[in-house]
């Protein structure tokens, strides 16, 4: 299994004179070729910020991005100058965003926006060719009457169709890697299912690798190969989807799975995880989850647990699961070098 995308000790901070918010803290991630990797977490867990940071979509005066390594197809992403990076974007890596109504420019037609991919990266293409390819893409993602729809504006599409159009835009140049940030969150369940099917089909047909960012565990179990569960900027548990969801080990994962409506019998009270996510400007020392953890021990308050993986790749960051005296290596310090 060859890795296509690697992140090592990614840290993202938002610095202001009043405070520093650490949105992502020491994130490690490896996505292999052809794989669907899900990043799961509640709002504020850092799942979106980590990908935005990698894609250089965060304004870097308030944001500070640091990492030990950031590699795509073996190339060091941090070392790329702006021109090389802009060539990569859209061509090899593409992103699909959450709400197509705001993610698409309201004053230009959908056809124009999809065509922009070609205008930027394939300057030799003629306008007619671009139009034909665009119509073809719309058809491929399942939009009916693409010849008419290509001249329509985003607000003239329904939610599901709009999201399909955005997917069409992302796959226009046949990228090897797709990052989908909550692609179905704004849509209703039936449309969700259709869209995920579409993504799965495209992925299989084009041999794409994918990162799927979501808070929906159901989506993960049906569509992803591997998963990382994030909380307050760090990974709590990671591994193959089957492993993690059927044999969860981290207290947070346990809490998440227990709080699903399907986890209780009819008539029983729904369970939930007490407390709320921490203020990311003043995170507690030690394990970020310990204030809400039922199994917290004294050591959890003082030292941050490292992500320790067993041979199967199933890793957990928890002192209770991996008591400190059996830890192989001490926790590492995140890199401090500025971009």
């Amino acid at each position: 299994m060859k890795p296509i995308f690697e992140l090592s000790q990614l840290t993202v901070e938002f610095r202001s004179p009043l405070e520093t918010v650490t949105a992502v803290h020491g994130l490690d991630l490896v996505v292999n070729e052809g794989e669907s990797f899900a990043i799961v977490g509640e709002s504020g867990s850092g799942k979106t910020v980590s990908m935005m940071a990698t894609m250089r979509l965060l304004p870097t005066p308030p944001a500070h991005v640091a990492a030990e390594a950031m590699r795509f197809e073996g190339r060091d992403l941090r070392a790329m100058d702006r021109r090389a990076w802009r060539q990569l974007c859209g061509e090899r890596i593409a992103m699909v965003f959450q709400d197509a109504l705001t993610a698409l420019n309201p004053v230009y037609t959908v056809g124009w926006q999809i065509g922009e991919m070609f205008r930027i990266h394939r300057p030799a293409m003629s306008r007619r060719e671009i139009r034909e390819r665009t119509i073809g893409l719309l058809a491929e993602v399942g939009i009916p009457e693409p010849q008419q729809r290509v001249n329509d504006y985003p607000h003239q599409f329904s939610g599901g169709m709009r999201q399909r159009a955005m997917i069409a835009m992302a796959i226009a140049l046949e990228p090897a890697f797709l990052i989908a940030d909550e692609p179905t969150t704004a849509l209703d369940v039936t449309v969700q299912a259709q869209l995920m099917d579409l993504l799965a089909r495209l992925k299989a047909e084009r041999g794409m690798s994918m990162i799927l960012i979501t808070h929906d565990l159901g989506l993960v179990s049906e569509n992803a190969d591997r998963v990382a569960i994030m909380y307050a900027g760090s990974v709590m548990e990671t591994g193959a989807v089957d492993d993690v969801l059927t044999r969860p080990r981290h207290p947070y994962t346990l809490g998440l799975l227990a709080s699903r409506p399907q986890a209780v019998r009819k008539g029983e009270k729904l369970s939930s995880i007490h407390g709320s996510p921490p203020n990311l400007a003043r995170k507690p020392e030690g394990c970020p989850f310990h204030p809400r953890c039922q199994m917290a021990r004294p050591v959890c308050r003082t030292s941050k647990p490292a992500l320790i993986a067993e041979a199967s790749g199933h890793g957990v960051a928890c002192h209770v699961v991996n008591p400190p005296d059996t830890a192989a290596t001490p926790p590492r310090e995140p890199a401090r070098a500025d971009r």
Partner: protein
Amino acid sequence: MSSTDHPLGTPPDEAETLLTARRPAYLHFLVRDPFALASAIWLLLIVLFATLGPLLLGDAATDMNLRARNLPLGSIENSWLGILGYDPLGRSVLARCIVATQTTIGIAAAAALAALTIGTIVGLYAGYTGGRTGRVIMQLSDIVQSFPSLLLALFVLYMLEPQPLNIVLVLAFGQIPIYLRVARAEVLELRERLFVDAARVLGAKPRQILARHIGPLVLPVVINIVTIDFALIMLSESSLSFLGLGVQSPSITWGVLVAQGREYLQSAWWISFFPGLMIMLTTLSINLLANWLRRVRDPRERWRFDRARHTGRRR
């Protein structure tokens, strides 16, 4: 305190409350912005001039001294008042500028206040009553607003005499639609809120509801506008006075002073220059301060004020 005691989960600790509920320390931010600080100081000076000017310098502004006719800038031999020069009747330009402050500011303030009061009340009424009356009022307001204010003022003043009261009313009239529109918009939004229904159910009369409940919420928005509006009115009044169709002799405003210097542009440019400069500095100060205030009150912009301390490298 364990997390299971508190009904909403972990309660925020004291430090967290302080940090997230911080109210802006206005003076602190004022000092940090040199433009805003300068504006504030200038406006304080203006208030000083307006209140004490005629009292202290009244004579210097009106006494004619034909030996000092059109003396240039910096003629401080006889008196420091000559520092900005003299006008064709030998009166100190500086003294006249300072004395004119009272009438200028007075008219503008009166007009602004009148516009604010009338506009807000009518707007509240229009918004609360709604229906046809509300729409008709809005239509009338739109008509007045869509027409250039100076032209409207000139037209109305043609028909009335250019007495100070008429000028104030005419200037106010042009600005009423702004407050009307804003007040009405606020009322329309607030009218649907629960607390208004509650008051109505308890038997409160519309007038009471407007005054007690909706009014206080509309006030901050309206006050925000009046600062800029005041500056606009001042500019309008200056234009009217400059054209000779505003305040008449012997009252003086800055606009009148500029007009008086117009025929001496070649020989004694300072007569027109300094009164006009005062108009500009005052308007500019009001605008800068209003800008500053808006930025300080917006929590998202506040961090920019401490930028000098921030040493992060730029992208």
